[in-house]
């Protein structure tokens, strides 16, 4: 009798504890097993970017009026601050991966050396990549006012009055001086961000929205396809890619940019912003790709 009761009690215990446990363990094993085949484990490496700023094929020299642009303006450089976002690695077969899982952007500031390096957190599948592209600045849907509250990114603020709901931050501030036609050293603020629709006289255009009239804005971000950015990534390796901004190119192609014509500030001049945008397409090159 005792044996029977013990058996019953044990049976009940096994049913209530071990069977559910077994089911859970089996389930976990199944899930783990689902990941175990070698063919399905992502084999990854890492990407790190370095950023450098050059003028006429040499490292940019700051605070010295030693350059002359295509328009003949003597000019000097004070600082460059800009955003890169949605970096994308493209394969020859059309597949691509966007490096935006951990963060979708990086801020670069020539006054803050640490910003000249970006170790991307996202693991990247190994393999051969045909080329790299990125967004200069931010796509409109990303560029929300107040998305940055801390410096230095917050200092790239672009006024709501000039950019609306999709123009919260400068894409770039490139500041310096040029000598005008009277040989006076004057500051220029070569800034890019969201522009405003304007009539032929440069007056801003409003549209009726419900009871209110609102300004309409022009997105000036652009996609950069980096030439000669082919590379192969091996398992557990870090590929270090150096992106170079060739600053003189902002003033050179396809439009010759004359500071005397455009003046020192451009944030309310969509024609100038469009010119800067179009000059930006070929500003960037890859100067080196190597294993770290």
């Amino acid at each position: 009798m005792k044996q029977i009761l013990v058996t019953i009690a044990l049976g009940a215990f096994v049913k209530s504890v071990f069977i559910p446990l077994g089911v859970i363990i089996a389930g976990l094993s199944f899930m783990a097993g689902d990941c175990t085949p070698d063919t399905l484990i992502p084999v990854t490496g890492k990407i790190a970017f370095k950023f450098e700023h050059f003028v006429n094929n040499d490292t940019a020299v700051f605070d010295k009026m030693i350059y002359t642009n295509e328009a003949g303006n003597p000019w000097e450089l004070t600082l460059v601050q800009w955003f890169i976002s949605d970096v994308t690695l493209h394969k020859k077969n059309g597949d691509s991966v966007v490096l935006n899982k951990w963060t979708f952007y990086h801020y670069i500031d020539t006054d803050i050396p640490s910003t000249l390096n970006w170790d991307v957190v996202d693991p990247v599948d190994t393999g051969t990549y045909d080329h790299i592209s990125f967004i200069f600045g931010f796509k409109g849907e990303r560029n929300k006012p107040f998305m940055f509250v801390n410096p230095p990114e917050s200092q790239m603020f672009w006024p709501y009055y000039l950019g609306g709901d999709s123009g919260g931050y400068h894409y770039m501030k490139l500041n310096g001086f040029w000598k005008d036609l009277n040989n006076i050293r004057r500051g220029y603020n070569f800034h890019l961000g969201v522009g405003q629709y304007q009539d032929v006289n440069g007056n801003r255009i409003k549209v009726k929205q419900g009871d209110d009239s609102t300004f309409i804005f022009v997105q000036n971000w652009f996609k950069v396809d980096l030439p000669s950015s082919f590379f192969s990534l091996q398992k557990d390796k870090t590929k270090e890619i150096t992106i170079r901004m060739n600053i003189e190119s902002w003033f050179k192609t396809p439009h010759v940019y004359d500071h005397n014509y455009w003046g020192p500030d451009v944030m309310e001049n969509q024609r100038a912003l469009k010119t800067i945008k179009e000059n930006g397409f070929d500003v960037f090159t890859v100067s080196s790709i190597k294993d770290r």
Partner: protein
Amino acid sequence: MKRLKLILGISAIIPLIKIVIIPLGIISAGISFMASDCDTTTPTPPWHTTPYQIPSPSGNWWPTPNIPADNPMTVEGVTLGRYLFYDGRLSGRLECDSQMSCGTCHLQKNSFEVGMDNPRFPGGRTKGIPDAQYPNGKYTPHYMLPLINLVFNHNGYLWNGMIHSSNPNLGSAAYKVPALPQYHMKNIESLVWMGIAAQHEMNSTIEKSVNMIKSIKSKPNYAELFKAAYGDEEITYDRISKAIAQFVRSLVSYNSKYHKWVRREIPKLEPNEYRGYTIYMSEKGDCFHCHGDPVLLTTNLFYNNGLDSIFNDTRDRYAYTKNPMDKGVYKAPTLINIELTAPYMHDGRYKTLREVVDHYSEQLVNSTTIDPLMKWIAYGGTQLKESEKDDLIAFLKTLTDWDFINNPAFSKPADLDTGCD
């Protein structure tokens, strides 16, 4: 029978308990022990303090507060700091004509700046407590900076930004303060020893000031206030500086008409105010590049804003960085409450907002270190029309936060009696 079954069933489970439950218990106890062992490494205050919450009505619009890890804000710490901030005996003196507190110069009604109408410093020119060398008091090298929203500043304090987390220096031979760790130059706490010891401020010594606070037995009862803030009655310079810094960090101004408009709590600005806003936030006035953070109204960065072409100030940004391009360069202060904080600029040269606007409109002075943001330098400035200046000033006045100015939490405690009021 039923009872027997139960007993037998339990008996049968005993081996299982031995094999499974007891080891699990031991492991669990071990983990708990390890956890409690870890807890002992983080000292738990034996007294109760209440964390102080920095107000930020627009939530995630405000920067991360800049609060040192070794001085978390508590209600008790802020309360103590408020008494110390307003206590003239911190200067180490009892005589009414020579007592000086932080609040002597930093008046709430002037957004914690000295103001033009300060009874002790008419015209806003502050000076230290007199001594044999300076019978009338030594003038402070610079006019005052705003003492508000400092908790959101990550770019250094003072006009040249020398008080910064990266500054490794300790003490000051000129102030006769030794190079000890508590006399650092890293944050708001650092400004307390400087204020006490500088000949052009309280002109005291750390020892004299701390001893004076120790000697005060009532109104307030500092022993009780220190015990509430720090767990015991010990009064030290370190605790004094931390408490004052906590109070200063609590001085957050966010409720101006402009802020309420940005938060959409009020539907619109007056037409002239809005026109002024468009001047401020566009290239026409171009105030926003330096004073542009939409809630702080400053970048907290440093610029040569075209005041001079010859630089002989030994306390400009260059004095700290040694970068020649920083000669004549100073911090851009917040413009919140700007209508209350005259005189303006580091040397107080402008007495009215109109004079300041005139400066940026027509009076910029070119130099080798002029900031490129002063881009209309060839014309002397932005060349605003008189009506545009009126509108810009109307907008600047929307930055006044009367709720802050009249907030009793920031005023002199009613029961503080220094024997001089």
